[in-house]
């Protein structure tokens, strides 16, 4: 591998990594508060990408408007899922997981008759290439890094600086105590669902101009996000960020050297080894 290729795949790794971070952050936030894993996260990623396809490339809205609209629409959907499923099963972890699994297969399968059998393509939003450290990188891929970065910073500010964010952290520590202090647990859980779904939609929306679109496109990013949050420790936001960067780099550098499938197998072997020696991940706490 030449140095140029290494720099190039490192930068591409950072841009893939920032998508992974967005996916993993939503998952880890929802896990921290409710101890559930959103299996529908990949399907929401797919819907985010298709939202861009319809709103931006079919109906001609500006990309940023389409991006915000996709996040708002799917965020609302997340809130509704909390109301109709999570609240209906009274927060039971296993029924919620299975219901979310069913929601995933439903959205994927319904995608074929609704969106059509053929792969969809979104035209490029940012054109051209740019010279970074002596290698040429497409602006499309480069732009992912600041956009995802802005969302990550925004989420951190929201969680650490606002009253709603404080309520989320309170629920994460102790749901009953938070409720006794006047936190409306239902509304805040709904908000966590909305944020998680909106972040997944944002990841899909960012990737839409780069990859082809089909109803199953969310499976790979979902698995990657799983690996990241196991690696970083469930419920840990710094863990998700570090894990996302690591996996993005592994994915890009190993995939350039050996191919995409061996890269996935390698990350899985890594996870199995990690589980053997440190089952809580890098920053995680013991499972409840």
């Amino acid at each position: 591998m030449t140095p140029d290729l290494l720099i190039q795949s490192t930068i591409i790794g950072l841009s893939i990594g920032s998508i992974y971070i967005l996916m993993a952050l939503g998952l880890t936030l929802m896990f921290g508060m409710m101890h559930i894993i959103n299996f529908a996260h990949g399907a929401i990623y797919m819907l985010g990408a298709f939202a861009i396809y319809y709103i931006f490339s079919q109906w001609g809205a500006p990309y940023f408007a389409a991006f915000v609209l996709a996040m708002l629409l799917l965020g609302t959907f997340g809130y509704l899922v909390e109301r109709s499923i999570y609240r209906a099963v009274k927060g039971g972890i296993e029924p919620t997981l299975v219901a979310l699994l069913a929601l995933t297969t439903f959205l994927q399968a319904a995608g074929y008759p609704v969106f059509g059998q053929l792969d969809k393509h979104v035209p490029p939003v940012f054109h051209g290439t740019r010279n970074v450290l002596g290698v040429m990188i497409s602006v499309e891929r480069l732009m992912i890094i600041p956009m995802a970065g802005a969302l990550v910073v925004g989420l951190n500010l929201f969680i650490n600086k606002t009253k709603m964010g404080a309520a989320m952290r309170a629920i994460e520590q102790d749901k009953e105590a938070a409720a006794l202090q006047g936190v409306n647990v239902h509304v805040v859980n709904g908000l966590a669902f909305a944020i998680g779904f909106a972040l997944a939609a944002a990841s899909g929306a960012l990737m839409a101009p780069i990859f082809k679109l089909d109803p199953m496109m969310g499976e790979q990013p979902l698995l990657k996000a799983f690996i990241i949050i196991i690696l970083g420790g469930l419920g840990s936001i710094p863990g998700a960020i570090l894990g996302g960067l690591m996996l993005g780099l592994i994915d890009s550098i190993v995939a350039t050297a050996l191919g995409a499938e061996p890269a996935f197998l390698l990350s899985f072997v890594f996870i199995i080894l990690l589980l053997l020696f440190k089952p809580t991940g890098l920053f995680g706490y013991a499972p409840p």
Partner: protein
Amino acid sequence: MRRLRVGVLIVLVLLMLLVPQLGGDYYVHVFALVFTNVILAASLRPSLTCGQLNIGHSAFMSVGAYASALLAKNLAVSFEVSMLCGALLAAVVGLVIGYPSLRLRGVYFAMVTVAFVEVIRLIAQLWVPLTRGMSGLSGIPKPNLLGVTLVTKASQYYLALFLMLLTLLILWKLESSRLGLIWKSIGMADNLAQSLGVNIANHKLLAFLLGCFFAGVAGAFYAHFIRFLFPPEFGFLMATNILVYNYVGGRGHFAGPIVGAAFLSLLSEPFRGSAYETIFFSIAMLLTILFLPGGLITLPGKLAELRGWKSASAHSPSPAA
């Protein structure tokens, strides 16, 4: 009541024995696949009873299917041997990936099992010299049982029926033994079970490996029955379906996965293989979780309760009288 149940069971088995005589090859084919699904669903139950949400069960079916098919195709091994080897290999693979993952609880375990499916699928896809990868493995011989090749669909149907009944018998005996009680206690409160001297790690592993073994059996039969294997077939979707059979049927009783698998596979038969099959499955699953959390097996009880409540209110003297 017990006598009634035994009677119903005997009638059901007799009916199943008569399917090839009453219906054509189509029904034979459909029911043989239903039996495979029943084996898969029932084999997941021990693990679920221990509270381990396994969303990767189709991976082990895939291992059993490929192992048995390759042994029979390349080495002309007879079905009983290739099936046992396939099932054992599935259990060994289960041991290798299950041992580290079973240290995890709840959602951690569930997430890792999702990755199992992908790993096994990728191996089947990438190991082209052995599995033929994405071109699919074809030319798998028909099951050759004790030197006799089962040529007709009907004879293969009886093989499926036998395998299903044997699997159910073994799993039922295990579940109604002390072991079943231990599994249940782990599922309800593993800390408490541990404090009472139950080795929860070993029992979880045993339940998991049993499931892998019988998933391998189902896979082996499937391979020699359909005679074509394609890696993506054993993906996430099939793994979810196996879980769905258990939930829609009901988690509370051994009959749950059997009822769930039979009900869903028969009802979805008109649109087998299309996207609508999955849509139907997922809607059935969501409705069950939301409106019938105990699954289909609690339906008769609920209906009886409803009727009893209605007739009781009809007979009770009205305050005006």
